[in-house]
């Protein structure tokens, strides 16, 4: 499997209160698949995705991505891992406000060994005509398209999405999901994303349902629904 998480535990201590966020997560996702993590607020979805993406560490358990044990990496190795392998898409886009669309994508292309052509990536997300605009001149949907372009320009092995449609309306959300599906098909990128929206699960190969730090349900979709047909 491309991603193998086993017995992953994570807790935070605030003052004298210890909160267990992940209580032994097991999760597997194949190469080139789309995975969706569902769950209510506080179920540990973001913590899980952050640990897989190398921005946080678990207390115990193993996280293996593409046969590399991420859970054993030190800070420098994690930096190199994120630099080479991971693409992030956030709920609130997180574009750098004082850089243009093109430059926002260049932020990542700049540190990649073999980045994709920026113009081609912009074309893929249908934003080539807005290359010189600043984020504040774009709508939410357009900003998220740029964020996706930024995430895929390095041609990452794994694209992680933290509620990528969480701040968007229905139509825009659907177009973003379509875009993610296209990226998955065109570049063969493995995608793992978090959502509150159970309807989105229909476009995923595998679905993991989290509650209170545990995977309580997991299933494989035999027939994938194209994003444009998803309704909620």
């Amino acid at each position, binding site marked *: 499997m491309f991603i193998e998480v086993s017995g992953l535990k994570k807790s935070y201590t605030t003052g004298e209160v210890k909160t267990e966020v992940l209580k032994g997560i097991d999760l597997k996702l194949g190469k080139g698949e789309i995975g969706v993590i569902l769950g209510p607020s506080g179920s540990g979805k973001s913590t899980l995705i952050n640990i897989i993406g190398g921005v946080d560490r678990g207390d115990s358990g193993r996280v293996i991505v593409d046969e590399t044990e991420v859970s054993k990496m030190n800070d420098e190795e994690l930096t190199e891992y*994120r630099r080479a392998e991971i693409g992030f898409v956030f709920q609130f886009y997180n574009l750098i406000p004082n850089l243009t669309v093109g430059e926002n994508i260049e932020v990542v292309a700049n540190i990649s060994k073999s980045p994709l052509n920026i113009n081609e990536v912009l074309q893929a997300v249908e934003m080539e005509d807005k290359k010189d605009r600043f*984020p504040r001149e774009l709508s939410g949907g357009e900003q998220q398209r740029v964020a996706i372009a930024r995430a895929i320009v390095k041609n990452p092995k794994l694209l992680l999405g933290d509620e990528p449609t969480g701040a968007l309306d229905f139509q825009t959300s659907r177009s973003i999901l379509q875009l993610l599906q296209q990226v998955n098909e065109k570049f063969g990128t493995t995608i793992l994303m978090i959502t509150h929206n159970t309807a989105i699960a229909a476009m995923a190969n595998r679905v993991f349902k989290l509650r209170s730090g545990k995977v309580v349900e997991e299933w494989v979709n035999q027939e994938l629904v194209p994003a444009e047909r998803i309704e909620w």
Partner: protein
Amino acid sequence: MVMALRKRVMRILKENNRRYLGILVLIILGSYTFIVAAGLAQNLANLVTTFTEEHRQEDLSFRADRVIPDREGLEQAAGVVIEDYLSFDAALSDTLTLRLLSATERLNTPAVIEGRALSGPGEILLDPAFAGANGYPVGSQIEAAGKTFTVVGYMSLPHYIYPLKNVNDILSSPQEFGVGVITRGAFTGLDNAERIYAVRFNDRTRSLNRQAVELRERLRADGITVSDWVDIMNNRRARLVWASITGMKTMSVPLPVAMFLISCLIIAIMFWRMIRRDGVIIGTLYAQGYRRRELTRHYMTIPLLLALAGGVIGSLLAIPSLEPMVMAMVSYYNVPVPGVELNFLHVLTGILTPVLFLGLSSYLVIRSELRRSPAELMKGEQQKTKVNALERAFKLERFKFSTKFKLRQQFRSISRLVFLFLGVTSASILMLFGFTVMNSMRHVFDASETYQFEYEYSFRELQFGAAPEGAEAFNAGKFYPENNQEIEFYIAGIEPDSRLITLTDLKGNPLPNNQTNITKPLADRMGIKVGDTVTFISKEDGKPYTFQIDAVAASYIEQFIYLPLAEFNQKMGLPENSFIGLFSTKKLDIPDEKLSGFKTMGELPGAMDEFMGQVVSMVVMMTVVASVVALIIIYLVTSLLIEENRNSISLLKIFGYRRREIRSLILNSSTPVIVAGFIAGIPLALASMGAVYGYLGKMINLVLPPIVSPLYVVISFVTIMLTYQLSKALCAKSVETVAMSEALKAGTE
């Protein structure tokens, strides 16, 4: 204000303690500089004015070929007070001269500052710097001119405030020269004593220059030939003190204002950002029933507190340091100090100006932000939707990514950019200002490039024939331009093949002495160019003379026009082969009674070293202040930059940027602005120096060349860059502490 909100003020100050400390230091520096500089200028001006008025400073002095026969009649006719006094230069050793002056009663009366007044011929009053440097305490004995005097006290003289041996010298050296006052009776037996006439006009409202010309005409009509006519305005012994007063006055306003303005700008930027960030809290407080006035008062507390604290601390530091500073300044001159006055208006201004500056700027910012409706405020930080002109104007495609990123950081906020640019420019000007002064002084005092002689002799009467071996003859006269009698300079006739005066043009090529050359300070001061034909009035006979200028000489020591001796004599109607002085490489055997002046070039270095030591300490102080200012400004801007970019820094970490890459992108982004600010500072420093020097030229007839040496530019640049590195080091930790979780949790644009 509600107690809970008041507690928040202290917490806000604590959160950004370094930033507020920086602002506080700027305000303290501003208040301190203002109170000290204004206090120094006022005290010095008061001391000098009171002294010169009470002790009846002369308006001019001269020597006459014979005793004025009807002095009282002349006094009445010309409306003047004339008093003669005797002067004798007693050599105490090869290198030490004491000028004995007879005590006067009507003009230039000595002020006893320690000890008692003279009561008999065996007593002397000494100038305190000379007495201190050569070990003559009150009560001690001094041997001079073959007589023994008891030092009964120290005195100040209104025409020897800065005790220069020659009226055209620039530096005094108490180890080599001093002044003493003895009774007129004590001059008995001193046959070579000179009689000098001091004059003071009764009518203080009419042009003193005009009255001087009239007096001179009367003397000429009476058949009296005068020499060594020195107007007080051109007498550096009396006027040099005004250079310090002017300097202090000049410093007392722009420097503190610059500090206050910088503080205003930074505090306005910080508050604008803070209120934007606090939007939700403010909206909530509004919604709970808080009034705008109450919130305005809450936010105004910090700038007012800082301004008041800075003003008060600055004043508290300035008050005790005023007296020692006045005393230190006065010790350089010789003026009696009955007391040092602290002007409470200065203290009040020092405290209230920052309060006014910071209060007003913060109030305007706070008011504009609090105008927004509670609902709007509660939505959170309003997104900036406009792209500013700089961001739009610059096409950065051709640059590599890191350059683009850094430039974009700077273009984002024009106010921040302007603040950094102006801050660095001001600090650079301050630093270069100090170095330029030092360099200019060096140029002025370093006569070795122009004067190749060791001794200069001036005769009482015209001499004829050939100069002795190793010497060259010269003739000279004082002139002034037709429209400005306050500018006074020499025109000298020198030997056309002179080896003892070596002039070069502005490119450093030697200039021949068989033509008319003007020194650069004089050319600049009067706007004279090569090829100009100029007319000047002779101070001797009041007649106009015309000269054609062939070249401008890069000699900064004096204001001179040189032309061949024969041509000078012919123009002035003087006999052929006549001369009034000699330049010589060796000491000549000339009887004292034939001489009206004697100057050794060797006297200069000792005095110059001492003076340059003081200049160097001043430059070091200015460099330290400039570095502190630069450090505070760069630190404040860098910390603001980090604050604004927390999310970007966090994102860069998530994307896998390495630490040094992030540090470079964020912290080095100010480099082009700092370099540009420094470069802009160079011409501005030169221009401001030019203005200050122009003023000095008017005040004391001393022209300094505003020259910035490349070495000092490099030193200033390195200093600015070092402060930049230091501020980056101080801020580096803030970059490190930005967590990746900030971007993961945040929602921006």
